[in-house]
């Protein structure tokens, strides 16, 4: 199982949308995928056409002493997702990568090839979430630039620019700067700003499923292809 953690550099960068789109893109490539929402706002499920009133998730299950994967839902044969659910007390192990690795060991080895974690936006207090690949979703704007400058990078940490608008001079300049500054971290393509990305959530679908021919979906497909190629090599 390859664990991919996706996290916004700050709030509102569109990390959940990317997780949902990526999951669908990997499924389209014939992979078996599990998505786990680790954000207490519990929004990832909305990308998978889930009823917003249903508040079941792994956090409730753990609180109630059930197994953590009891609340998983299936979307087709290859895509399963696990909402955060609702919990009065924040589960301490929510953002502990090692804890989750232990949990995943309870599953059959080849149930899933990919496990995608949707992490809440990064905060300084937070420990590093260990995974096989960590993607930090950024906007090419000054706030993210400052946050990146103060960031500690770990191995297999990558930066992905979302909502990119090449006609913006500022975004272009920052992107060019980052290409030089984070040359070994920054993924060599961006996900463009695309209305379809927002509409997709309004339709309660991932952008890949909603409009597979749009530019944002193409960027996400690139990401899926990159992950597949990367782990083809590793294997």
């Amino acid at each position, binding site marked *: 199982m390859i664990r991919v953690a996706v996290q916004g550099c700050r709030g509102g960068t569109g990390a959940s949308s990317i997780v949902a789109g990526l999951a669908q893109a990997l499924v389209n490539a014939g992979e078996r995928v599990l998505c786990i929402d680790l954000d207490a706002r519990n929004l990832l499920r909305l990308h998978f056409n889930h009823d917003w009133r249903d508040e079941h998730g792994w956090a409730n299950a753990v609180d109630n002493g059930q197994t953590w994967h009891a609340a998983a839902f299936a979307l087709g044969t290859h895509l399963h997702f696990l909402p955060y659910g609702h919990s009065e007390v924040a589960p301490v192990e929510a953002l502990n990568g090692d804890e989750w690795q232990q949990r995943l060991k309870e599953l059959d080895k080849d149930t899933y090839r990919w496990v995608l974690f949707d992490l809440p936006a990064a905060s300084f207090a937070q420990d590093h979430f260990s995974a096989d690949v960590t993607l930090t979703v950024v906007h090419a704007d000054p706030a993210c630039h400052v946050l990146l400058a103060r960031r500690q990078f770990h191995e297999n940490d990558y930066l992905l620019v979302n909502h990119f608008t*090449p006609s913006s001079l500022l975004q272009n300049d920052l992107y*060019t700067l980052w290409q030089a500054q984070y040359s070994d971290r920054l993924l060599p393509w961006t996900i463009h*700003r*695309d209305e379809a990305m927002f509409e997709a959530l309004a339709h309660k679908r991932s952008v890949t499923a909603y409009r597979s*021919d*749009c530019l*944002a979906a*193409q960027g996400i497909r690139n990401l899926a292809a990159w992950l597949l190629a990367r782990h083809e090599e590793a294997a």
Partner: protein
Amino acid sequence: MSLWLQPGAQAQWRRHYRHLRDRRGATPPTAVLLTLAWAVAWCFLPLESGRWQSLLSSHSGGFTHLQRRRPGIADPLRYGLQFLWLLLVRPRRSHAARASRRERFKPLARARGFLYPRANKVAQRVERHLRPALSTFEGDNPDGSAATRNTRWLLILMGGTTAILMLLVITQPFTLPAQALFSVLLWIIALIVRRLPGRFSTLILVVLSLTVSCRYLWWRYTSTLNWDDGLDMTFGLLLLGAETYSWLVLILGYFQTLWPLNRKPVSLPEDTREWPSVDLMIPTYNESLEVVRPTVLAALGLDWPKDKINIYLLDDGKRAAFRDFAADVGVGYITRDDNNHAKAGNLNHALTVTQGDYIAIFDCDHVPQRSFLQMTMGWFLKDPKLGLIQTPHHFFSPDPFERNLDRFRRMPNEGTLFYGLVQDGNDLWDAAFFCGSCAVLKRRAIEAIGGFAVETVTEDAHTSLRLHRKGFTSAYLRIPQAAGLATESVSAHIGQRIRWARGMVQIFRLDNPLFGPGLRLSQRLCYVNAMLHFLAGVPRLIFLTAPLAFLLLHAYIIYAPAFLLLAFVIPHMLHSGLTNSHIQGRYRHSFWSEVYDTVLAWYIALPTTVALINPRKGKFNVTAKGGLVDRQYFDWSISRPYLLLILLNLSGVVAAIWRLQSGPADEIPTVLVSLVWVFYNLVILGGAIAVAAEARQVRRNHRVSITLPGAVQLPGGYAYPCTLQDYAEGGLGIVLPAAGLVNVGDTLTLLLQRGHQEHAFAARVVNASGERAGLELEKMPLAKHVDYIQCTFARADTWSLWRDDLPADRPMKSMIDVVCLGFEGYRRLFQHAPRVVRAPVSWLGSFIPQRPHEAS
């Protein structure tokens, strides 16, 4: 009338008459006569019967073409002829029916399927035996070792023996059967050898071709001249001279193209401080700013340290708009007081006011790719003797041949042979020469020879000849690093070639590469061949008229029995054709050289002859570029000489028919051979005529076809990936993932990648159909414009992709292609002929019966 006709019949007559008058537009007398003829026919034929009705109906197709024309007095004759024709031929089958018939001919395909693999197996077996020997030949043997020195003596010994044997083979007289057998055997060897891979097979083919051709020429010199008759001898010697010229060019061509070097770029040092400084010069005289602008903007984007490159616009036109443009974009602007020596003088003047170590030269319409300098400069650092590096001239618009014959990118174009093979072959002999643009020269080398050569109108070739004489070397990098516009009309193309031809012949006279100091034999031969190539005019005209000497004047130009002639000349033609196809097939298809040469022959014949006699005559004329042929027309003035040649050859056909009828019986084979020759000439001349029908150019800005990923951002915030299909300076064509995404008039943002950088350009949709859309770019500030040129014209990968999809040469198919082209030429000639000529011919043509299509 009512007295002797039944009322019903009378009504029929009237109806027929009215039909002819009202529906088909016949004049009253014609209608009356045709009605009478129809009535007479009715007396003998039951025209009202179902069978006749169905035959005559427009659906059956038997008489459709007659029913479509306006009725004429001679219609009964036309119907009669067509009727007889219908009795004789079967209707043409539809496509599907023909396919099913091909199925029936499967045995033939099966036989082929049986034979080919076996022939292949034989070839493979031969190759397996030869492979060890071949690889030692093909491998790079280091020079100078003791072992090589020994083998060298052995090779000289073997070479000497072979030469003596070869001489024997060439000079040995044979009887007709012996010669025929000999030819067949060599041909079989050639057919087997040509399937072997590698250069060794080329060598064998060349040797076979040389043997056969030398033998032919020897035979021609020793036993086919009639010294007793003045007329025979004059024409015979003229033809023999032309044949000797072709033979010489054939042999030198083999020498030149035997072993293309295929040089690779050399990488530059890591530290850019070691990179030399370059002056990039763009000479211009009368070209418009629209043509020059992309070149300058692309030059601004070259990948080279900014403090080591200076761009200069050398404007001999001294135009204020150019000076302002140069100031705007920040490039140097150089003018001079006089315009002496045209381009060479312009460059020489620029040399006096600039300082860079190297000089890169681009014609104002050749847009350099960003990688140009990085690809080429490495060789200068590696080889300190290098004085010149040349890259191909590549064109993104069709040349007049490609445009008028509708063959753009469907086969190698005229320039491909030179830039794809000949220059690369020259490079092996260190004889690649300067072509005036897309090249880098070393300043020290140019100064050593006293600047660019100004004595001839082709300063480029002459300059490199002098470089070679001074001991500098040259290099050719067969990677297109720039692209430009091709000449836009046949007359401009011919004008350009006249200049080249005149200039090359001038060099031949003023600074003959065969003599003078500093050159190696191989360099002399390569230069001489380049110059001889332009002397092809007179020999070509001789070939186009030679059979007429016999047919019209009864001169025995080849004083030998027809069958013996065939036994010598056919192998000569087949072997040289096969070998050239083997060597050049990827760069020029068989028989096309004939068409290209014929178009030029008449026009270069005179200037080259004049230049040969008085090389100091003739001025530099600028090749016009970037124009627009805005309507379809036939260039009569260009094709006049070819019309004359066609008339001559047609009179030859008439004379041949007369000779077949009333000449002596023993001359019949000779007449037939001459007739075949005349028909071949007519086909080639037809091809030359076809070129003169100028096709219309639709756009002013030439669009470059390409497949490139891009993206668009639409007004509502939606974004889609797209594929860029073509681009020009002002607009682009894209394909979107779905239909109906954009509407005409939408403004959108186009995103294009250049390296890791993504650029956005505002554009407007000017047409949209299905998934395709045509965009027009909005006005851009200069920096954006440079970006646009960099994303499109100056991309480093665009041009190299082009040659991949050209079909390989298949001599037989190519021959059929050229024959069809010949017929096409006559069709176009007829289409554009004045009415006085066209009307009687088409009237006569209307009597020709037509083969109907099979009713489905």
